[in-house]
């Protein structure tokens, strides 16, 4: 399929705005053509996932090639933010990261700064930087950012991998397919909740179950039956897990999310529920990540980065305690100064924990961290992290925040 281009985009394709924008348009034409886009839609923000474990040396070199272009040819055209980096430079030695990892990270930071990218280093932009508004077309990377902003805020985005998010930043446009189109945002199936979770790990488990039910990027779940309105952190874990387990970029929760004031707004109200999810289903899901009686090697709170409210809860549980195994709490560079100022960081670190800023555990050379520190059994309250980290050789155990803290202090999973 051939995409219609306006005059300026045609000029980019012809190279009149330099090779960076010429590459970007060519990439967008290939991707948009594959996915059936008719044209490009203007976008107001971009968000780029670009940890160096993913880029490797070749990707870093490619970025540096763009950064070496003249300033008018290389600068992004719209506000462009970064997902977490692959390290917290101030804690890298404590984590056992190696100098070559840090050198790659420094090179990427320099390249992005030359491109005019804002080094926000966060996967919770919607809690910390500038949430999009309903109907706003954006080009976001990080599946958790996309699903939250699409679902909870009503923004319009597909999953934009690093190269595509950068292409959008350079052109100010993205191919108009998928969730930029109203028709694609209709619900595909209904899930009825017989249980409304209380804890964040349970919201993550629920999101994971629904993600598995969807099993596909193009099927939008519609959730009914919840007994109360979840808060931002609950929907953060819920959406991040759904996106991780099912590659789902959008859900509707009737009466909660803006496009679904009623069931009929998003799906035929006569549609029978594909599944009803109850306490037993959550239990079965958790049993897949059970570790009762085992020694734990490391406890990690990450993916998504912790909000100030999560940091407060963790600090409260650790006050006056002492950990016996490493406990890592990963937050954003925006939340960290507040956590410092309000004494949360001190409480966590006085108990033996480590507060990390601007990184994400699984995006920070997790396999090498395991080897360097002898970590295998990892306890977390993040269903998303539990899903991902198995591929890096860890044995994940999914627990509540409180049980994670107990495991960190006793060294054993109760």
């Amino acid at each position, binding site marked *: 399929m051939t995409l219609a281009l306006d005059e300026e985009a045609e000029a980019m394709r012809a190279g009149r705005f330099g090779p960076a924008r010429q590459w970007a348009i060519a*990439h967008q034409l*290939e*991707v948009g053509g*594959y*996915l*059936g886009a008719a044209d490009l839609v203007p976008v107001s923000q971009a968000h780029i*996932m*670009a*940890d160096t474990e*993913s*880029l*490797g*040396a*070749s*990707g870093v070199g*490619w970025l540096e090639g763009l950064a070496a272009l003249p300033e008018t040819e290389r600068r992004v055209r719209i506000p462009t933010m970064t997902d977490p980096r692959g390290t917290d430079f101030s804690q890298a030695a404590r984590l056992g990261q190696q100098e070559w990892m840090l050198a790659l990270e420094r090179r990427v930071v320099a390249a992005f700064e030359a491109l005019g990218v804002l080094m926000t280093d966060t996967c919770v932009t919607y809690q910390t930087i500038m949430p999009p508004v309903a109907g706003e077309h954006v080009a976001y*990377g*990080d*599946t958790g950012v996309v699903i939250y902003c699409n679902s909870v805020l009503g923004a319009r985005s*597909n*999953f*934009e*991998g*690093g*190269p*595509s998010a950068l292409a959008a930043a350079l052109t100010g446009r993205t191919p108009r*397919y*998928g969730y930029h189109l109203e028709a694609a945002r209709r619900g595909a199936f209904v899930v009825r909740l017989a249980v409304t979770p209380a804890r964040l790990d349970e919201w993550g488990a629920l999101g994971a179950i629904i993600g598995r039910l969807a*099993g*596909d*990027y*193009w099927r939008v779940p519609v959730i009914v039956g919840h007994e109360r309105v979840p808060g931002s952190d609950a929907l953060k874990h819920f959406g991040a897990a759904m*996106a*991780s*387990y*099912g*590659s789902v970029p959008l859900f509707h929760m009737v009466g909660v999310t803006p496009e679904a004031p009623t069931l009929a707004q998003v799906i035929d109200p006569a549609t029978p529920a594909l599944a009803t999810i109850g306490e037993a289903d959550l239990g079965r899901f958790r049993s897949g990540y059970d570790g009762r009686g085992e020694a734990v090697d490391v406890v990690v709170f990450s993916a998504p980065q912790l909000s100030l409210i999560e940091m407060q809860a963790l600090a409260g549980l650790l006050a006056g305690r002492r950990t016996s195994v490493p406990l890592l709490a990963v937050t954003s560079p925006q939340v960290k100064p507040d956590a410092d100022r309000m004494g949360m960081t001190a409480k966590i670190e006085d108990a033996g924990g480590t507060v990390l800023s601007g990184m994400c555990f*699984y*995006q920070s050379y997790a*396999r090498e961290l395991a080897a360097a520190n002898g970590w295998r059994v990892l306890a977390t309250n993040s269903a998303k992290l539990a*899903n*991902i980290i*198995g*591929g*890096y*050789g860890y044995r994940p155990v999914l627990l509540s925040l409180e049980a994670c803290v107990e495991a960190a202090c006793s060294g054993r999973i109760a």
Partner: protein
Amino acid sequence: MKEFRAASALGERVSGRALVAADNFSARYDLDRISGIFSRAEHKLAGRSYVGLVLVLNTVKGGVASAWMLREMKSRGVVPAAFAFNRVNPIMVQGAAFAGITMMSGFDVDITVAIPDGAQVALEPDATPPVLCLF
């Protein structure tokens, strides 16, 4: 020889041996990208090398990392020769386009059933419609 038509395709013509499973794919979640094997214990291809093979799988899962990782894998030569999926998400399209790796999706049959594991196949993304040939 049998031909299977695809709805969408990109890249150049490729032929090779197929590595097939009724399972899904994520470069970050499923692979040891250094040694070139499926490392996720739960994956149906766990422990098997993917290097130089045509991966035939159901769909794509998880996050956005594959968009960068495919090019990085290709730069080291530890990469599949091509991909064939029943369905894709945008990340695989973006990653394959960025890396210059041939990919097809949207077949008129379940491609993970139609292609036997280890079979010799050829992908012709420039054909109209694009086809995957089973020899």
